[in-house]
C-alpha cells in the first residue's frame, strides 16, 4: 500500500514537472497566449528608482491622461534586472504575464524561447497606430537593429527604451597634475597616461569595473567584432589586444578592480583617487552628483580607440518587450512604447536621466541644444550614437557575459595572461553558444 502511494506521489510530481507554459509545450508554429497579470491595466515591470522612477511615473500618468477611455498603463517597480528576469521567468511558468517589461536582449531571447514575446513588426507596420517610414528613419539604425533577433527569424522582439554608450570619465585635476591637458584618444595614449599618472601619484590611474560590456566596447574600439554567427571571435587580434591592455594594467599596477556590483570607480574618480573610469554614459548624473557640481573638475569622452578616425563604442541599455497576452493589453503597451520613444518624450527622458535620445531629430530640440551648450561634455555621448554597436542578441549570450567577466577577473588577478584567457574564453563561449 505504502509503495503504491509513493508511486502515485512520484508520478504526480513528474507530471507537474512537465509543463512549460500554459498547455505544456506549444508547437513550433503556435504561440501560446498568456493571461494578463492584471486585466484592468497594462502592467509595465520596470527597474527605475529615485528621480528617474519619479519621471517615468509622471510620463505614464501623462500618457494615461491622454487616452482616458483606453486601458491604462500601470508601472510597477520590480527590483533590478535580475529580479525582473526571475519574476518574468516565474510568470511564464505560471501562465500570466504583464503587458510589457524592461529587458536586455539576452533576457528577451530567453523569454522568446518560451513563446512569451510578441513580434513587434505587425504593430510597427499598422497603418493606424504604427510608425511611418519617416518615423522609422528618424531612429538611429543601431538602436533598432539591436532589437531584431537573428535566432528568431530576424523578428523585432523588443523596442529601444533606455540607451547609453560606453564612455571614458576623467578627472581633470589628476590629469593636469600628471602633465596632460586632454584625455587619451587611443589605447596607446591611455596606457602612456596611466603610466605617467602612476609615476606622479604613486597610485593606479584607472578603477576597473569588471564588466563584459567594457571588454566588448574595447574590442569594438580596436576595430574588432565579438561574434560571427554562433562563433565568438575572442581569439581575434583585436580581442587579444583588448585583453592584453587589461594584462598591462594589472601587471604594471596601473589599474585595480573595484568591488563587483559597486560604483566605487565613480566615487574614486570624484575623490581624485584615480584619473579614469569607464562606464555607461547614463552614469553621468551619478558622477555629477558625486562631484557636487564642480563641472570644471571632470569630463566624459568617447572611449580610447584603435584608430580615432574610425571610432566605435558599445551601445547598451535595456529595451522594452511586449508579451503575448491579450490584443488589448498589447495595443496599450505598444501605444505607450510609441509615446515614450517620440521625440518630445525622448528628449525629456534624456534631460532628466542621462540616457540618450534615440531619434536623430532630437538634435534639433531647443531644450537639448541648451543642455549641450551648458557643458561641452553633455553632447559627447550623443555624438557616439552613429558609430555605437550593440552586443550580440544571441540566446546564451548572458552566459557568455559571465565567462567574459571571469576571464577579465583572472587577468586582473594575475592568474592568466591576456592571450591565454582570450583563447580559453573563445573555447568556452563557443561551447555555450553551440549548446543553444
Amino acid at each position, binding site marked *: 500500500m505504502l509503495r503504491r502511494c509513493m508511486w502515485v506521489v512520484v508520478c504526480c510530481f513528474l507530471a507537474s514537472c512537465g509543463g512549460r507554459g500554459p498547455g505544456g509545450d506549444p508547437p513550433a508554429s503556435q504561440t501560446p497566449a498568456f493571461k494578463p497579470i492584471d486585466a484592468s491595466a497594462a502592467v509595465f515591470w520596470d527597474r527605475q528608482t529615485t528621480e528617474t522612477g519619479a519621471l517615468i511615473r509622471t510620463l505614464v500618468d501623462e500618457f494615461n491622461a491622454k487616452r482616458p477611455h483606453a486601458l491604462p498603463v500601470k508601472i*510597477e517597480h520590480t527590483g533590478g534586472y535580475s529580479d525582473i528576469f526571475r519574476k518574468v521567468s*516565474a510568470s511564464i511558468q505560471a501562465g500570466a504575464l504583464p503587458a510589457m517589461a524592461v529587458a536586455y536582449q539576452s533576457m528577451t531571447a530567453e523569454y522568446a524561447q518560451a513563446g512569451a514575446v510578441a513580434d513587434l513588426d505587425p504593430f510597427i507596420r499598422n497603418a493606424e497606430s504604427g510608425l511611418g517610414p519617416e518615423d522609422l528613419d528618424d531612429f538611429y539604425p543601431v538602436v533598432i537593429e539591436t532589437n531584431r533577433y537573428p535566432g528568431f527569424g530576424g523578428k523585432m522582439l523588443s523596442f529601444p527604451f533606455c540607451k547609453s554608450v560606453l564612455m571614458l570619465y576623467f578627472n581633470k585635476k589628476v590629469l593636469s597634475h600628471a602633465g596632460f591637458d586632454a584625455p587619451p584618444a587611443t589605447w596607446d595614449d591611455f596606457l602612456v597616461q596611466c603610466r605617467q599618472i602612476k609615476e606622479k601619484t604613486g597610485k593606479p590611474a584607472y578603477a576597473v569595473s569588471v564588466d563584459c560590456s567594457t571588454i566588448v566596447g574595447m574590442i569594438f574600439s580596436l576595430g574588432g567584432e565579438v561574434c560571427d554567427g554562433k562563433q565568438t571571435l575572442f581569439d581575434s587580434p583585436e580581442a587579444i589586444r583588448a585583453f592584453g591592455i587589461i594584462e598591462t594594467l594589472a601587471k604594471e599596477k596601473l589599474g585595480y578592480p573595484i568591488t563587483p556590483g559597486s*560604483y566605487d570607480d565613480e566615487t*574614486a574618480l570624484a575623490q581624485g583617487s584615480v584619473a579614469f573610469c569607464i562606464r555607461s554614459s547614463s552614469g553621468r548624473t551619478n558622477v555629477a552628483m558625486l562631484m557636487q557640481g564642480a563641472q570644471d573638475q571632470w569630463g566624459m569622452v568617447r572611449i580610447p580607440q584603435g584608430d580615432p578616425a574610425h571610432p566605435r563604442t558599445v551601445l547598451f541599455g535595456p529595451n522594452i518587450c511586449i508579451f503575448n497576452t491579450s490584443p488589448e493589453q498589447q495595443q496599450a503597451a505598444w501605444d505607450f512604447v510609441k509615446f515614450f520613444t517620440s521625440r518630445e518624450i525622448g528628449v525629456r527622458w534624456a534631460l532628466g536621466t542621462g540616457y540618450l535620445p534615440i531619434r536623430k531629430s532630437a538634435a534639433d530640440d531647443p531644450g537639448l541644444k541648451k543642455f549641450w551648450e551648458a557643458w561641452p561634455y553633455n553632447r559627447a555621448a550623443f555624438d557616439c550614437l552613429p558609430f555605437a554597436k550593440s552586443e550580440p542578441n544571441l540566446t546564451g549570450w548572458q552566459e557568455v557575459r559571465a565567462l567574459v567577466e571571469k576571464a577579465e577577473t583572472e587577468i586582473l588577478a594575475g592568474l592568466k595572461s591576456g592571450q591565454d584567457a582570450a583563447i580559453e574564453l573563445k573555447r568556452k563561449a563557443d561551447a555555450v553558444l553551440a549548446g543553444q
Partner: protein
Amino acid sequence: MIGRILLYLFLAAGMAATAFPFLWMITTAFKTLPEALSPALNLLPAQWQWHNFVETFQAAPFGRYFFNSFMVGSAVTAAVIVSSLMAGYAFARLDFRGRSLLFGIVLATMMVPFEATLIPNFALIRRLGWYNTYPALIVPWCANAFSIFLMRQAFMGLPADYFDAAKVDGCGHLRFLFRVAAPLVKPALVTVGLFAFLGSYNSLIWPLVVTSEDTMRVVQVGLTVFSGAEGVRLHLLMCASTIVILPTVALYFAAQKNFLESALGSGIKG
C-alpha cells in the same frame, strides 16, 4: 590582574569591531552622499543632514511597508510556532510507522535551495489567485524544517516520565503538549519565533516576486528604491536601514535571555 585587563581589552576590541558597522550605518544616515561614499573611516558627518530622513520617507511609503512587515512577520511567527511545536512533538514523542523516514524527508527539505522552489511556488500562488495578497506572503513560510528540528531536539530533552505521570492523571498528547511540554521548552520556542520573525522580516526576493502594489510590499522591498541602475544613494539607504533595523534589534534584546538558553541547550553556535 594583568590577565583580566588583557581579557577585557580583547573583549572591548571585539565589541568595537562588532559595533562599528552599526555605528557607521547610523552616522552615515546623517551624511551627504559624497561623505557617505568616502573611503575615509570618518564616523561623524561634517554636518548632520537631518533632512535625509524626510527624503527617505518621501522616496517610498515606509509606513505602509512597516505595517505589512509586522503583519506578515507576526502571522508567520505564530504559524511557525504552532507547526513546529506540533511536528517537533510528534517526531520526538509519538511512535508511528515511518517516523524516521518522514523526519529524514523533512530534514532533506533544508537542502533544497530557495532558488529551486521559487518558480514552482510562484506558479502555485498564481494558480491559487493569491498574487498580491497577504496569503502569498504568509502561507509558504508557515512551517520549516529547521524549526521542527529545533523543537524535536527540545522535546527529546524532556524526561519520558513527565508524560507517563501526566498520562496517569488522564492527560492526552495535546493537553500534555500545550499545558506541560510547551512551557518547559520555552527557550527553544522563543528561538523558533525569533528566527521565524527575522526570516520573514528580512526576506526580499519572495515579497518582490509575489507582490506588485505598494500597499502589499514590505520594508526590505522598500530599501531597493535607493539602488538604481546608475548608482546607490548610500546615505538614504543607510537612513532607511537604520529605521528598518530598529524592530529587529528591539526584538533580539527582548528575547536575548531565552535565545542564549536555547542556543546553549541545543548546542547551536553562532
